[in-house]
């Protein structure tokens, strides 16, 4: 087996996998995408200059893989979902929770559902900053953003999540028609 692969796997495999999982919310998809990350990493490893840390470099590649995946998907599915925005949310909300989530508290389950109603940028920042506990500068490096862009995106993401969470808590027990009407 490739020694570079072995080393990267030992150090970062679960981090990369988890990041992708929270981005795409599917174990199978995350498994495919993590492989794509390795392929890109191994092809480009000779050119890795060590300007950034290995960890943020891997995250930046994982980010690109995830974005590419969304772009590909957008072809037919996303466009359809966007045109029927409300039903789209419904469909997503009805996705079964993965087993890891089913065991968690209600709050966490709600948060998990709210996550994919943020924009892709916001989701990336939230996952990196709070789930992976990267610093602002690490996140900026992984996303090739400025630190201030990380900060503002993070701020907006929390605002969005707060709003979504509150809405969800409020609507508990309510029918979906009422939520729609309220908006």
């Amino acid at each position, binding site marked *: 087996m490739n020694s570079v692969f072995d080393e990267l796997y030992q150090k970062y*495999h679960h981090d990369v996998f988890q990041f992708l999982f929270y981005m795409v919310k599917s174990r199978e998809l995350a498994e495919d995408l993590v492989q794509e990350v390795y392929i890109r990493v191994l092809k480009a490893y000779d050119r890795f200059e060590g300007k950034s840390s290995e960890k943020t470099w891997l995250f930046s590649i994982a980010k690109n893989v995830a974005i590419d995946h969304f772009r590909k998907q957008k072809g037919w599915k996303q466009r359809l979902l966007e045109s029927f925005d409300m039903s789209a949310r419904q469909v997503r909300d009805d996705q079964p929770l993965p087993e890891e989530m089913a065991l968690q508290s209600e709050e966490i389950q709600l948060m998990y559902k709210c996550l994919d109603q943020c924009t892709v940028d916001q989701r990336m920042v939230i996952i990196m900053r709070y789930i992976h506990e990267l610093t602002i500068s690490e996140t900026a490096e992984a996303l090739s953003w400025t630190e201030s862009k990380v900060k503002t995106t993070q701020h907006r993401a929390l605002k969005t999540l707060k709003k979504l969470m509150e809405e969800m808590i409020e609507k508990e027990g309510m029918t979906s028609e009422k939520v729609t009407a309220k908006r």
Partner: protein
Amino acid sequence: MKKSQLSDKQLEEILGQMPKIKDHRDSRDVYQNIAHRVEKRKKMPAWVIPGAALAAVLFLAFILSPGLLGSNYSEQKSMDSSSADGAKSSMEMNTASRDDTANESASHKESTFMMDAADGEAEEKSKEIAAMDKANPYEGLISLYPEETDTETSEIFTYAIPDDQAMAIVPVTVTIPKKEGKSRIDSYTETMPMLKEEEWGLTDYYPMDATWNFDEATKTLTMDVKQNNPYRDGSTANVIFVDSMTQNLSQAGIDKMVLTTEGEPGIDMGNFGPMKELPINTGTSKRRAYLFLSVEGMPNPYLVPTKEQHKTIGEAFEQMWKGDEVGYLSPSLPDDFKLAKTESNNKVLEITLTDDTALDESFLPNLEAILMTASEFDYTGVRFTNANIDQLGPFNLNEVLPLPLAPNKKNIN
């Protein structure tokens, strides 16, 4: 929880409690899935395919470029070589005669010496030297002449050899010392491996991949080839084969040639179909014209017979002015060489030149082409009338000129 109660801190806490998600797969399984894509690319760098394409292009260019330069080049070459051949080739042929006629070696050695000294000087000098010594005056010439060889002691073999483009078949003549108790056929086949086709600017063709057997009583030569013999493929291969065998054997005292493939009768000859026997036409005159084929690095052009047979020598001369149909062989007579008349007088070809035809030394190869062509028309000699010079190379134009025995002599020792 109420609407206004969620602070950033609480949100961050919830996010921090999100479960850790793990990939349950083993690292080896993951690597297995990506190995084919990672490793394959490494084995084949990006330059391989363009590199291979470039190599192919260069290879094609290499093969095609001589063909593109082809005919123009050879014509020019024939003009160049005809003027420059004398001195150069006399050197080369010195060595030939030294070995050929062992009984005259003493006088020859001396002449070789003399020729070396006169090397840089013009053709007239060599004529004087020829007169002084009994050196072979025909040495620098293209064809083999009766005076320069003793048929009692040596065998003359003419092999038909394809040129380097396999477009023409060049008859090449070699002389080897006769050996006691050895049949002509044996000597003929044993000489094949000694031919230096590539050195002569031709295609390596001999020895032939065949077993030979000659029955003295019936004068039948049997040639046995393997199943995958090279003579069946492609029109050129078998045309060359049939041509070369008929040319080779026409004077070998053979009545019949039988062809077999691994003991079974017949050889599949492609164009000709299966052939069990090869007709050997003995004695009949072939009536072909001889044209020039210039080969790079050779002092003289080769004399190559045409495929066409001509009714009269006049027609043959016409073709010698024109060259062959496809333009591969170049003309062997210059435009400014004009005939007033040709006639046959007691088997001697009488050629009368027009008053404005001026011959010089550079005409020597052309003269050889005339002599070689005349030899195909049952003449015993050629005499010129109204030639402006008396002597051309070894030939005295006031006398009847001898006809050559065979074209394109080469030394194989």
